[in-house]
């Protein structure tokens, strides 16, 4: 390679960007351009205030043509920002886009240093190293790949359903996978929704029905994603079908099985506030409309032991011999809408959530308020069914506590607590509602008006301060807190306490995310590709985010994000073919010893042993060009295109030589 470079010296153009003052205030950009004018290989050198601007790009295009350049260095910001811009400029000038090198003198230099002289020296070194690399860059052609125009949506809550409907309405097929027996997610459990107080079920069930009837949507409830392989546009998904023990096509919902079932279990739909049978329908509007037999609570799926439900089923829908099966599907994009859970009350032992029945979390209180809930919509406390005459609501239970719990704001609690307190006052007009808060955050359309109504019309008492302890005395709960506006200790006798528990990542979702290989933030919420400009995409191409799996948000925001994710999927599917970066890592058969170390290193399963030839084979479509194999290869057979060992070493030499 080196020999080849020597025989035909490249004509390299260097363009140093000021980035306004972002670079120029710390790096002497003119000096960088001047010093490197005569550096070996550099034919042309200039600086300009904004290389990414139209005139800046035009300058590159014109210079390539004029000076017959065949290699370009743009010393500017990180390649994640403008590499594509300059590659496109090169293409317009008739130069292979992979001859563009970006020397990052902003994030890695001007932004992190203050000493102008040293920073300039560093910029020169950075540029020199890229000149060394550019001299060895080769022309590459992007790899073109077909797209499977079919999407997978993981999660059947409001975000998943909205995304599925939108993608299907774009004209593409969608598969929705939901781990629970019915779609509906958390939203179907809510009573009324702020700030308009529409009944949550009334607004969600039409969407659920639409999903179940849509000709392009395939609904897989009681299924879980088991494995996924492939890459954007071409995923293969293994989906586990959990045995329902009831044939949903035969079940006619007569309910005879439920009547005779002798086993009870906590009702998940009512957050454990009531009981259901081991064979059950989660809630009346459940979709699909079928009974499900919960093997964990069933006497044992053995007709000899019980078998009562099977005996009474006229339709012969119950089959104890159902086994877990695997479904395989091919899709081109995945929307991850796995939802959230609430922070466990056990973590806040001082509030007694685990000890006292009448200390409940926000979702449990939703069930107590709901007409379909365990009390039929009457506010009654769980311990003895009495109507509570005083309820204390504790906001930020676990949220915004950097010392012991979660540092972030769960965003929806201010509003739903206001709603809880308002609904309680409507249902129990002589009841006292007291809310402890840190701040009341009502940023949203018509949100503050709703909160003010709670305070002014419904006379809910808001106390700014935290609760320190909740304990029982007789049949009362005593709430100790502090009013930080008056600086006084507060003690309230309450009949019930509602904790606005923080929102956390869905329980058990980390295993799934590991399979999908998509990144999360430190709290386990899905990480977006860019917090401002790519908020609904994962960095792992082909994966899109929707709903609370990505972070706490309310229903309108969840729906908007789901639609945005669907639009992104639509954009992907509208392309004729996808372009895959050619900066992959092929194998030099003559050097490969067949040790297969690279096969184990590859996180994308792009490499495999070819047993016939005794060397490693590479699927370049799967290869993401991370370079892990190239670093691990002991014989130098794995060389990444345009980042070969030769290039890396010549970069080091260029940088380290004074």
């Amino acid at each position, binding site marked *: 390679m080196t020999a080849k470079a020597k025989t035909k010296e490249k004509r390299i153009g260097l363009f140093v960007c000021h980035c306004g003052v972002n670079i120029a205030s710390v790096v002497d950009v003119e000096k960088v351009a001047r010093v490197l004018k005569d550096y070996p290989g550099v034919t042309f050198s200039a600086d300009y205030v904004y290389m990414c601007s139209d005139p800046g790009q035009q300058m590159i295009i014109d210079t390539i043509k004029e000076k017959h350049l065949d290699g370009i260095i743009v010393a500017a910001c990180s390649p994640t920002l403008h590499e594509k811009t300059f590659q496109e400029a090169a293409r317009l000038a008739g130069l292979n886009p992979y001859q563009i090198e970006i020397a990052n003198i902003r994030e890695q230099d001007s932004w992190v240093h203050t000493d102008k002289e040293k920073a300039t020296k560093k910029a020169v070194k950075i540029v020199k190293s890229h000149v060394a690399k550019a001299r060895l860059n080769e022309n590459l052609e992007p790899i073109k790949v077909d797209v499977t125009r079919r999407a997978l949506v993981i999660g059947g809550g409001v975000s998943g359903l909205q995304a599925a409907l939108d993608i299907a309405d774009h004209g593409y097929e969608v598969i929705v996978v939901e781990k629970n027996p019915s779609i509906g997610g958390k939203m179907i459990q809510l009573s009324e929704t702020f700030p308009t107080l529409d009944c949550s079920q009334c607004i969600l069930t039409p969407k659920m029905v639409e999903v179940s009837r849509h000709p392009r949507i395939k609904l897989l409830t009681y299924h879980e994603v088991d494995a996924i392989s492939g890459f954007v546009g071409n995923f293969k998904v293994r989906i586990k079908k959990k045995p329902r023990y009831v044939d949903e096509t035969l079940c006619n919902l007569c309910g005879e099985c439920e009547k005779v079932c002798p086993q009870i279990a906590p009702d998940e739909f009512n957050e454990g506030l009531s009981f259901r049978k081991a064979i059950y329908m989660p809630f009346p509007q459940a979709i699909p409309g079928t009974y499900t037999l919960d093997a964990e609570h069933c006497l044992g799926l053995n007709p000899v032991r019980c078998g009562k439900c099977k005996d009474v089923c006229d339709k012969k829908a119950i089959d104890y011999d159902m086994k877990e099966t695997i479904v395989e599907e091919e899709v081109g994009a995945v929307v991850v809408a796995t939802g959230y859970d609430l922070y466990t009350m056990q973590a806040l*032992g*001082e509030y007694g959530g685990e*000890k006292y029945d009448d200390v409940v979390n926000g979702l449990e209180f939703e069930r107590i308020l709901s007409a379909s809930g365990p009390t039929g919509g009457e506010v009654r406390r769980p311990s003895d069914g009495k109507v509570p005459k005083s309820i204390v609501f504790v906001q930020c239970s676990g949220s915004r506590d950097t010392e012991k719990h979660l540092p972030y704001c769960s965003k929806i609690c201010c509003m739903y607590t206001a709603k809880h307190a308002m609904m309680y006052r409507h249902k129990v007009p002589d009841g006292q509602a007291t809310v402890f808060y840190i701040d009341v955050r009502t940023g949203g359309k018509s949100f503050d008006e709703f909160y003010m109504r709670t305070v002014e019309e419904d006379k809910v008492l808001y106390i700014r301060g935290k609760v320190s*302890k909740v*304990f*029982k*005395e007789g049949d009362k709960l*005593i709430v100790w807190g502090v009013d930080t506006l008056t600086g006084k200790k507060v003690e309230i006798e309450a009949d019930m306490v509602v904790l606005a528990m923080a929102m956390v990542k869905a329980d058990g979702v980390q295993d799934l995310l590991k399979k999908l290989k998509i990144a999360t933030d430190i709290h386990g919420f899905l990480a977006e590709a860019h917090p401002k400009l790519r908020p609904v995409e994962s960095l792992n191409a082909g994966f899109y985010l929707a709903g609370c799996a990505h972070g706490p948000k309310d229903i309108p925001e969840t729906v908007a994000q789901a639609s945005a994710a669907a639009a992104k999927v639509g954009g992907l599917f509208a392309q004729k073919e996808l372009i895959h970066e050619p900066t992959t890592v092929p194998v030099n058969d003559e050097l490969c010893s067949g040790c297969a170390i690279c096969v184990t290193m590859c996180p994308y399963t792009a490499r495999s042993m070819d047993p016939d030839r005794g060397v490693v084979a590479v699927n370049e479509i799967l290869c993401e060009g991370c370079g892990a194999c190239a670093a691990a290869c002991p014989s130098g057979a794995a060389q990444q295109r345009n980042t070969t060992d030769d290039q890396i070493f010549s970069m080091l030499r260029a940088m380290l030589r004074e």
Partner: protein
Amino acid sequence: MKLHYYPGCTLKEKTPGLDISTREAMKRLDIELVEPEGWTCCGAEYPLTAEKISGLAAPIRVLRQVRDEGGDVIVTTCSFCYSVLKRSNKALQDDPLKRKRINAFLRDDIKIDPLTKERTTHFEDYNGEVQVLHLLEYLRDRVGFPRIRERLKRDLGNLPIAAYYGCRLLRPKDEMDFDEPDSPHLFEEFLEAVGCAAVDYPFKQECCGSYLVVSLPDAATEASYRVLRSAKMNGAEAITVTCPLCFYNLDHRQETIKATYLDFPGLPVVFFTQLLAWALGVDRSVLGLGEHRVPADGVFSGTPATEVRT
């Protein structure tokens, strides 16, 4: 066997009877409690209040002495001493700078042997080698509650007793690492091991008023009253403590509490080692019952000592 024991000044000077009950109880478990030579006050709260190094001198000297006498564990029955010794020890283990500075300071100590008049001037650096345990922890982890059950000589007949942790044993959790601050159970397990029934009540971790008894006695009276009332309301026939200051606030000041809160009928306060000693068959004459202002004779009556198997 011998075990290093730090009684602390309150227990030793103000309520010696409780100290004796501790020693007697431990003898029944074949353990002789030995005080480190020349021990001083741990400094009560002061070593931990300021970011100053010198306050650590007192507790660290005690721990260094234990090490120099060949001990690797010291037990105490006072929650305050436990908190101070344990946290000072941890500060030294965790912070190399504190370790260096306190050792530089203590290196100049001079010790004169009372008999030979020999002067010791060289001290090895102390680096947190000694483990500080509350006697309750020691009983659970080193002796074991099953072994205590085997040695029981009296049947306490599931007497309902409220375990009072107070504030010092449990917090701060990371440093004390004694039990779950919000739902502790070690003391209850101890009560069950000696044959009592543990009463659950919500004030077991609330402060008794502590030193406020000096500066704001009314506040201390209220704090102690709430603890006692809650224990009584939940059916306790006595409340048991692990700290002589709690004992003082709850027992010695009960007359004031009763005079202030007329609804409160009174509740005997016992030291946990008194219960242990009594259950292990120690005679009531050495239980230190004279220390009580609220008569606790009712707790220590009933059947004479016999072999009890549980």
